[in-house]
């Protein structure tokens, strides 16, 4: 199960598990994001390489206009995945 929606302050709230079966939902939502954005992962339990691909694709698109995604409230599992992927160097990331 995975959900993605805007929060009250404009942040993007991700919840559940961003795996290979859920990437279409994330990709459709993030494709509509313009300019800088904050992804709140407080309720995101899990991410795999399929989810990383969507984040990278979005970050590259936003970087063309000088913007980018900030990711906050990252749990230990997702932090490890980012670290092993080198994503900590291409995203601004804040741990929980």
């Amino acid at each position, binding site marked *: 199960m995975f959900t993605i929606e805007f929060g009250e302050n404009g942040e993007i709230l991700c919840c559940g598990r961003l*795996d290979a079966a859920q990437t279409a939902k994330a990709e459709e939502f993030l494709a509509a994001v313009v300019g800088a954005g904050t992804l709140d992962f407080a309720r995101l339990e899990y991410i*795999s390489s399929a989810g990383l691909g969507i984040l*990278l694709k979005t970050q590259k698109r936003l*970087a063309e206009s000088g913007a980018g995604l900030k990711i906050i409230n990252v749990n230990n599992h997702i932090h490890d995945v980012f670290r092993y*992927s080198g994503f900590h160097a291409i995203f601004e990331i804040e741990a929980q």
Partner: protein
Amino acid sequence: MQKKFARTIDALGDIYRFAEDVFASGDVQDSVRMPVHLALEELYVNMVEYYPDNDNDILLDVSASDGRVTVAMTDFDVDPFDVTVPRNVDTDLPLEERVPGGLGLHLVQRMVDNLEYEYRDRQSTIKFTKESG
């Protein structure tokens, strides 16, 4: 515990639930659960995507004891593909040189403790373990 799963990405939910049922009897912590979920997903998705028209189900054998998880995944009637070969992924590339994809096996190799591959009689078997600490 063994179980066969259909060759579709939609089986992932059932695979996670199957693993969690095994974990419940083995005192498995989150620091082990999530890497095992990731390895199961990445390896299963590879099997599905490399042979989408293969009619054979994929066999999973998962056990847990004292916080340690052992997994064997067997794919039938396939060509060899050694998942233990280093992927040589450059994770230091800047954003503009990055392309989506290619991280799955790299992550598996970094996040499980022992990764083994066997090929015999057109059967690929991948084994790995994960324990805390």
